[in-house]
């Protein structure tokens, strides 16, 4: 591609990204357009309960974030860095809670409490509620961490281990810092979920800004105050966006050399391989147990008079799937300019654009819906009450998740194919690939390096080979075969591909479960035949 073509392409991508960000800001624009001001927010602080709801929101966000990091990172380390038995099965089990919406698992936990210990506040206390929410949300941290753990340069860990032979040195000085961007991405999703959650909070007896917004609408019919509080909520979410940004961009991991990585080193658990796997099952069991148990109990209750009408369930499933597919396709397409731009050119404007996409995720869906009702009826009345408006709402909600996972994917793609282009033959012959890790802790710098092939203004990077057709994932995996790790490498790459799941999972749990199964199948069969070639295109 010519330089001029590149410039045009970059400008088009940037414009597309800004347009997408503008779309996701729709609810915030509506909040301002509906005539609320900062003084409206101030007047809400006249009530002491606003302050306590704000504190409760911040407290729950913090506690759930900490818990999801502990659970998510712990589980990720277990499946990606130890010799635990059946790591693939464990990965699927650890990701499974994504298929149950927070409201459902909270309702199940609450019902179980009423059934067995009606007088206790097990799940309706702050601690209990934090735990129930964390068990529902930790996969958002777990999944990106698994992906990230597979891409850390083992050479770094070896250096660290050789300098300080203590067992935890690697973990502290290489692994955890390198996980920061993944943790930050996961915590961002978790935190914004907690901030915008309504149903689960009500069941768990927690009063947050979002429950107050809903109370204003449902109990008082006071939409003006609901909008004021939503704007305050947007303010809180900007704080979260800023904090996760800082966490993601502070780090220590540096590259050792260019090229892609060897497979990671695994900590041997010895004869504890099985017992530790069994103990770790506590996590998915605690997360899914109440839901599975209460659902089974309800369906098998001999006294129940409610008949499950499977045709209704079937048609609901059908329309859910339709909306989910449409929303997933559109969100994936629209997310692309944003993720592409911010991955290729980590400028301030691209990064701010990426952050803005997240704002809508922290606003209660009811407010988002009102915003779309208002805008659709005033701007495009012919679209109002058509499925397209609902799809747009889903797209705005799930766009950030698509962006987040595309960024992980684009980062991987570049590492795999971008910098050490080599013909397949070379790959087959290579037994130990020169190691290279992206400066994970410093995305700005890292992306400059990554983009160096394409951007003349990026710092010069040594490029020892001319640009020739590069390797696709499968070729890498084929190459891995010669290192004696084909199945594992393939599984890892395939599981990396589960990154798109969370958004879809919330929209259509069954589809997500099917996708998980498909991933497992895919992981089990390395398809050696599909060797793709990449020309000297943007990759």
């Amino acid at each position, binding site marked *: 591609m010519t330089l001029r073509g590149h410039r045009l392409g970059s400008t088009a991508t940037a414009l597309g990204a800004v347009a997408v960000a503008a779309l996701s800001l729709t609810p915030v624009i509506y909040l301002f357009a509906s005539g609320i001001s900062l003084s409206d927010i101030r007047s809400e602080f006249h009530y002491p309960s606003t302050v306590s709801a704000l504190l409760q929101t911040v407290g729950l966000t913090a506690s759930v974030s900490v818990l999801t990091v502990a659970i998510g990172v712990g589980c990720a380390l277990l499946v990606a860095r130890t010799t635990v038995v059946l790591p693939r099965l464990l990965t699927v089990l650890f990701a499974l809670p994504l298929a149950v919406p927070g409201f459902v698992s909270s309702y199940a936990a609450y019902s179980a409490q009423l059934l067995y210990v009606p007088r206790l506040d097990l799940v309706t206390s702050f601690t209990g509620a934090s735990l129930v929410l964390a068990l529902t949300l930790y996969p958002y941290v777990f999944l990106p961490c698994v992906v990230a753990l597979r891409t850390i340069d083992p050479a770094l860990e070896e250096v660290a281990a050789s300098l300080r032979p203590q067992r935890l040195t690697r973990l502290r000085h290489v692994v955890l810092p390198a996980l920061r961007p993944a943790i930050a991405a996961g915590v961002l999703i978790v935190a914004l979920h907690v901030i915008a959650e309504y149903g689960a909070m009500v069941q768990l*007896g927690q009063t947050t800004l979002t*429950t107050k917004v809903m*109370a204003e609408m449902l*109990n*008082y019919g006071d*939409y003006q105050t609901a909008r004021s509080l939503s704007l305050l909520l947007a303010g809180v979410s900007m704080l979260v966006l800023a904090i996760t940004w800082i966490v993601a961009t502070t780090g220590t991991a540096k590259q050792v050399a260019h090229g892609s990585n060897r497979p990671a080193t695994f900590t041997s658990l010895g004869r504890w391989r099985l017992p530790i796997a069994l103990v770790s099952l506590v996590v998915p069991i605690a997360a899914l147990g109440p839901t599975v148990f209460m659902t089974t109990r309800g369906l098998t209750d001999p006294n129940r008079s409610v008949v499950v009408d499977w045709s209704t369930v079937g048609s609901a499933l059908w329309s859910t799937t339709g909306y989910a597919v449409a929303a997933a396709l559109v969100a994936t397409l629209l997310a692309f300019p944003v993720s592409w731009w911010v991955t290729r050119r980590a400028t301030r404007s691209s990064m701010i654009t990426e952050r803005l996409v997240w704002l809508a995720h922290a606003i209660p869906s009811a407010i988002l819906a009102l915003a779309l*009702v208002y805008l659709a009826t005033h701007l495009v009345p012919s679209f109002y009450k058509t499925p397209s408006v609902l799809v747009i709402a889903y797209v705005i909600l799930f766009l950030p998740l698509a962006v987040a996972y595309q960024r992980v994917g684009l980062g991987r793609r570049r590492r795999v194919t971008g910098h050490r282009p080599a013909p397949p033959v070379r790959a087959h012959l290579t037994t130990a690939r020169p190691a290279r890790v992206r400066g994970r802790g410093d995305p700005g710098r890292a992306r400059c390096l990554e983009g160096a092939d394409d951007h003349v203004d990026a710092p010069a990077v040594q490029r020892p080979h001319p640009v020739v057709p590069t390797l696709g994932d499968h070729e890498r995996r084929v190459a891995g075969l010669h290192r004696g790790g084909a199945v594992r490498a393939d599984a890892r790459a395939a599981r990396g591909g589960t990154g798109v799941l969370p958004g879809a999972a919330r929209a259509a749990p069954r589809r997500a479960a099917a996708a998980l199964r498909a991933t497992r199948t895919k992981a089990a069969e390395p398809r050696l035949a599909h060797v793709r070639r990449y020309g000297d295109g943007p990759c």
Partner: protein
Amino acid sequence: VGQIQAEGAASKADVYLSEDPGPAAQLGAAGLFSKIAPATLRQVRPGLSSGKGLWVAYAARSRVLYYNPTLISAADLPKTLADIVKPEYKDKFAWAPSGAFVATTQYLIETQGEAATKTWLEGIKANGANEHKNGNVRDTVEAGRHAMGLSNHYYWWVLASQKGGPDKLRSKIYHFPTVDPGNLILSSGAGILKSSKHQAEAQAFVEWLTAPSGGQRLIADSPADVAEAQYPVAVGVASKISGDLSEVKSPKFDMDELAHSTQAEDLLKELGMSS
């Protein structure tokens, strides 16, 4: 309400059906409704619809007290809503700051004054447990977490129908014995949007909805998972599940007053009794 207001003149709705009187009164006060035909209004028992004829009641629910006989006997229950804040009931009851609770508060402010209402609310806050939702009030009383709970009548009937009959529940439903704000009847209202291009059809639908042989029969005879044990409001029609509305000893009041519950909202928020 928010949706109808956001749509404004572009609304595609012809008829608006509310669950509680507040939202119907709110849209009526905002000038969004055409007047209901007098013949339609006459089909419904007096005192349930908008006094200005802006909307008509098509169903009703009443405030009630649930109690769990294993924790409190029927004889020990409070005789009036005001009595529930007495010391003997401390930590024995649940409540929820629902729309119906807000309506009760607004009614009390208008009939007994703000100061008395505030004292009563402080008692509720100090002695009761906020379970956030009327459905949770029902479930916690049924489970034995609380001896009593302030809620709406139909939650209990819906659960009874799901479990296979009222005798399958441990909790019971209690109406205060005399005319009392604890038995407050709240209408579900139907209004015709001024913006509708089908005024005649909308009037005809609302007339059918409130007719004893039309919509009212449907509400009276349908099982709880369809009509949710709501009371029909046409003269002479009673629910097969929850009975006749005339048995409910509710004080009469103008439900259009609920268009603006800002005083109740202010008071509840000031006391930190909001969700």
